[in-house]
């Protein structure tokens, strides 16, 4: 029993140990890298062992907990139900694969120790977050991922031009749209911080009502605290505040801006944090707590809450996909795509809360989380390889690479088709189930958003594939071909994303057969999830599927036409340059719906203006007049008097001299007791004895 506890705890501890070792071994480069990656491998293995254990165990979950700070009820504990174990399985393996990829990708980078330290620190925190059994530990993991992402996004903190996001000097609405890595790191931190405030408020509220921070106990107590909040009309605000952290971390509207500029980090970091794991933390939060909230859905406010989540998810999906159409940098397209797909996941879990069969939506969301993690990571890693080969981040500088990078091409194609939802790849199945769940809720607008976004997703996926590989080579690429620099990526880099793409393909092919069992396993024991009455087998609603597939095909078709058909391409380019309506639309989308400038102008500049004007008013009016003129006159008069009395007599003599002198007197008295003569000592001994005895006699 002890060994399995150890393994369970090591799953999240091992990467931390790896981080510490990376720091210690900073002199020995290669060894440090290998050790860091091997601790990731260890935690991946352990998570696999945990998976097996949980699936085989009778109750379907494991709970290990050591008391730590007893007075607050904080334990060092992990609660591993099937949701957590599947999530940690995915996270751990993805972290390992991406770490493996980084071995080659980050070779030669001067800040590698920092990189590995924060990479491992991040993995450890993410796993801690997933596995934690109490809210404080989860929060620690949450903050740890935030810190690590700040450090990793700003990894190239010297702000070289090619590492930034955006075009040099471009402005919109008066604010710069060009972001350096250091600035991006700060943005990421601040945006997610705002959400964390809500998270903390939620934690404190739960602690006050429940008296415990342990998640299983809070889940058991749901009826009680739900009632307590609902009676005071606080249930909806609480739910929204509590989920604020999740919304911010998963880059949902209105917190989505940080994910875009986070692309200043190395591509492996983008793959790790912004495709596969950290942004999924918000979704995991929802998946963890939504079943608990669903239990009290009969209370006021819960229904509204789920509706709000649904709308936010749908709108974010649409918003980000629209921006992906016009993006010029490869990684930006992928970033928008991530946020968009995350919107789908929120859409799924939000819709789940509105239905009778909660499990359907829950599973849809979780399955999409899995499949998205896999194919998005694959896309990002491949993008890293492409950018490395082409030595540029812009799509304009790519093209015609299909001849030279065959394996990368195949893997990117598979992953991109999965992203679009092309049957029978994994992405198709999972996106389809989400749309099905949404349609069951009967809400029209989210559904329409969902469908249209599917089409747009297909469009920009094709955009990537075509512009990078199929269309004739750009000047840049031709130049590089002449210098024989265009070649396939290194095998160490290629292996991870190929594996991931193949996984997406194979699982997709087998989905019809295995999904039933998979889903049953996932819901075997999840906190808050009640007995399920539905069948788990995959079923395809013909109308809906037909609709979604046709949207996908439309999107793909439009993409192909737009980028490969010569006349249409020229037509689009010309009309974009000339037609004001189209131009305006293009600018609107390119400037990310002007949301970022709005934030900066309103919030940032607004705060600056506010503080400046307060300062001016307060300073000039009140302070200058009263403080600098009136008060000095009064105080100089009184202070001269009081100084004479208090300072010299009181403080100088009393406090400074007197206390010190008294203490010194005592010290010297005490010191003089130690005369050095034994006889005196013994005398004191005896006197003490005598005093004692008389004292006792008196009592």
């Amino acid at each position: 029993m002890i060994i399995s506890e150890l393994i369970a705890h090591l799953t999240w501890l091992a990467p931390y140990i790896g981080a510490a070792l990376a720091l210690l071994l900073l002199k020995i480069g290669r060894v440090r890298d290998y050790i860091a990656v091997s601790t990731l491998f260890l935690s991946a293995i352990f998570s696999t062992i945990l998976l097996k254990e949980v699936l085989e165990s009778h109750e379907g979950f494991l709970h290990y907990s050591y008391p730590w700070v007893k007075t607050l009820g904080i334990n060092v504990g992990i609660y591993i139900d099937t949701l957590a174990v599947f999530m940690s399985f995915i996270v751990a393996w993805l972290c390992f694969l991406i770490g493996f990829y980084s071995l080659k990708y980050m070779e030669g980078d001067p800040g590698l120790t920092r990189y590995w330290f924060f990479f491992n620190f991040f993995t450890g925190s993410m796993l801690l977050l997933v596995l934690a059994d109490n809210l404080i530990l989860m929060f620690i993991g949450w903050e740890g991922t935030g810190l690590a992402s700040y450090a990793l996004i700003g990894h190239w903190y010297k702000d070289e031009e090619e590492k930034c996001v955006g075009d040099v000097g471009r402005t919109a609405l008066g604010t710069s749209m060009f972001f350096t890595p250091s600035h991006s790191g700060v943005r990421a931190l601040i945006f997610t911080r705002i959400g964390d405030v809500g998270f903390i408020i939620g934690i404190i509220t739960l602690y006050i009502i429940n008296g415990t921070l342990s998640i299983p106990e809070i889940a058991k107590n749901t009826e009680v605290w739900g009632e307590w909040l609902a009676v005071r009309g606080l249930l909806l605000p609480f739910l929204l505040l509590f989920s604020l952290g999740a919304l911010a971390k998963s880059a949902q509207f209105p917190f989505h801006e940080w994910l875009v500029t986070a692309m200043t980090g190395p591509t492996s970091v983008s793959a790790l944090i912004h495709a596969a794991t950290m942004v999924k933390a918000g979704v995991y939060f929802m998946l963890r707590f939504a079943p608990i909230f669903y239990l009290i859905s009969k209370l006021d406010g819960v229904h509204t809450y789920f509706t709000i989540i649904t709308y936010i998810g749908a709108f974010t999906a649409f918003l980000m996909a629209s921006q992906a159409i016009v993006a010029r940098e490869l990684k930006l397209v992928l970033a928008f795509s991530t946020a968009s797909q995350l919107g789908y996941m929120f859409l799924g879990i939000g819709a789940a809360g509105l239905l009778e069969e909660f499990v359907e939506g829950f599973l849809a969301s979780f399955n999409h989380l899995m499949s998205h993690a896999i194919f998005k990571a694959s896309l990002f890693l491949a993008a890293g390889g492409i950018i490395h080969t082409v030595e540029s981040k812009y799509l304009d500088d790519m093209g015609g690479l299909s001849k030279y990078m065959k394996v990368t091409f195949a893997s990117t194609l598979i992953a991109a088709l999965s992203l679009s939802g092309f049957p029978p790849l994994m992405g198709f199945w999972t996106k389809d189930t989400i749309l099905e769940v949404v349609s069951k809720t009967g809400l029209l607008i989210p559904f329409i958003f969902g469908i249209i976004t599917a089409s747009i997703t297909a469009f920009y996926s094709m955009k990537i594939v075509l512009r990078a590989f199929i269309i004739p080579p750009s000047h840049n690429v031709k130049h590089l071909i002449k210098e024989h620099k265009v070649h396939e990526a290194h095998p160490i880099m290629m292996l991870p994303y190929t594996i991931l793409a193949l996984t997406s393909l194979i699982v997709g092919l087998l989905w019809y057969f295995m999904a039933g069992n998979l889903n049953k396993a996932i819901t075997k024991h999840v906190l808050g999830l009640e007995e399920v009455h539905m069948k788990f087998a995959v079923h395809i609603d013909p109308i809906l599927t037909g609709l979604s597939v046709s949207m996908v095909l439309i999107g793909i078709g439009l993409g192909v036409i737009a980028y490969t058909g010569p006349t249409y391409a020229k037509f689009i380019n010309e009309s974009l340059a000339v037609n004001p309506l189209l131009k305006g639309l293009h600018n609107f989308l390119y400037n990310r719906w002007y949301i970022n400038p709005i934030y900066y102008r309103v919030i940032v500049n607004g705060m600056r203006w506010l503080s400046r004007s307060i300062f001016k008013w307060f300073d000039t009016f009140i302070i200058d007049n009263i403080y600098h003129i009136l008060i000095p006159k009064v105080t100089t008069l009184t202070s001269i008097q009081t100084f004479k009395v208090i300072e010299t007599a009181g403080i100088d003599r009393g406090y400074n001299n007197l206390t010190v002198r008294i203490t010194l007197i005592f010290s010297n008295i005490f010191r003089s007791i130690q005369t050095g003569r034994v006889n005196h000592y013994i005398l004191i001994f005896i006197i003490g004895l005598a005093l004692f005895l008389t004292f006792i006699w008196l009592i």
Partner: protein
Amino acid sequence: MNILAIILVSSGIITPTLDYTFKRRVSAYIVLFVIFIASIISIALLYITYNVSNVLLYDGVIKVDFYGTFLAFLATIGTLLVLIASMYEVRRWSTAPSFYSLLPLTLLGVYYIIFLNDIILLFIAWTLVSVASYALVGIKKDENSLEGAAKYALMGIIATTFLLYGLALIYGLTGSTKILDIIQYAKPLRNEPLLIIGIILLIISFSFKIGVVPFHGWLPDVYGGVHPSIISFIAGVVKLVGIAALLRVIYPFAQIMGNAWLIIFSILSISTMTFGNIAALVQRNVQRMMAYSSIAHAGYILLGFAAATGAGYLYGLQGIALHISTYIFAKIGIFVTLAYLSRIGLKLDLEGLSGLSKKMPITSVSLIILLLSLIGVPPLLGFWSKFPYLFLSTIDIAPWLTLIAIINSGISVGYYVQVIKSVFFLSSKAEGVERVKDPELIVIIITTIVTIILGLGIAPFIASTLTYK
């Protein structure tokens, strides 16, 4: 336990003879080996006694329980550390074999006191430890050591005689020598004045060893004058003896004495703390200052005793054990540092130590951390032992005591800070090079690391395992 006793006794006796035969190069290693085995056995004992309740050996004379094995473990580790630290310098003294043979003998006496259940054993083991420590103090045979030894011996003999007097009274009045039985018989005798005199004599005798005011006369001279390597043992392990004796013999009387208990111990505690802290403020010699600080810390530990009649008695007990561990690690570390510095050639007063951090960074950082632990700065071990446990233990029956203790703790910052200031901030007049091979340095680093690690959060775990009866 049997094995421990036999090993220690035999090594203690055989070592000096071996040394003089083999030209004394081996004695240190033999003893090192022996103590090492002793520490392994004590760790094993920790495991064994963890779940088992009290074990009585030798017809009830010895009682082994977890609290005791924890203290024994501390004592063994302390001895081990002192041994390692002595490897360089002490080995070259002419009387080194005697030093090395006295250590295991003293440790044996310490074990017996920690585990005792019988007052005869108390007297025997007490005298063993006392005599061995008189000899230890004077081992170097130069003027300072002998002066310290003479004072210590003279006062110690008086203490022993009072001990005997007290034991006589107690045995005479209760008719049994086993402590558990004594408690039984003493209950009806609650207000018998002779009994109380007897108990007080015992308290006084034990307090002499610990350095409680007004029985502390020898302490500043001995701690402050004799060579620091020796003092690290005396300050650490021998002080443990006094506290363990108080625990084993006097503590069970808490219920019997009622109100008087609190009064006695609070008077002792307050006077000790205050005297120690205030007298330390004017010391220039760092070693003597540490002597007064030892006095003050003994005062803090007495707080834990004072709590015995209140609801916080368990905290008091845990606090005593934790504070002993803080104190042992810190004082051994500090005195070993002082020994190291004096070996290198620095004068051990505030000017001599100034600016040490530039030349010997590891040593000075460790010194500062240990001093901070004694002050009670989180997240070091000293914080845990002082504040949540010791000070809070008396808060329900005597909150004024806690207040005075906190004030004293504040006063103590005054002199610790002087050391820190002179080491860290003043310009360097100190010259010295530290080398990694120096065994003292290793010991210093070990004690610092232990203080930090235990303080980072493990301390509450340890405390929760230390229940007593």
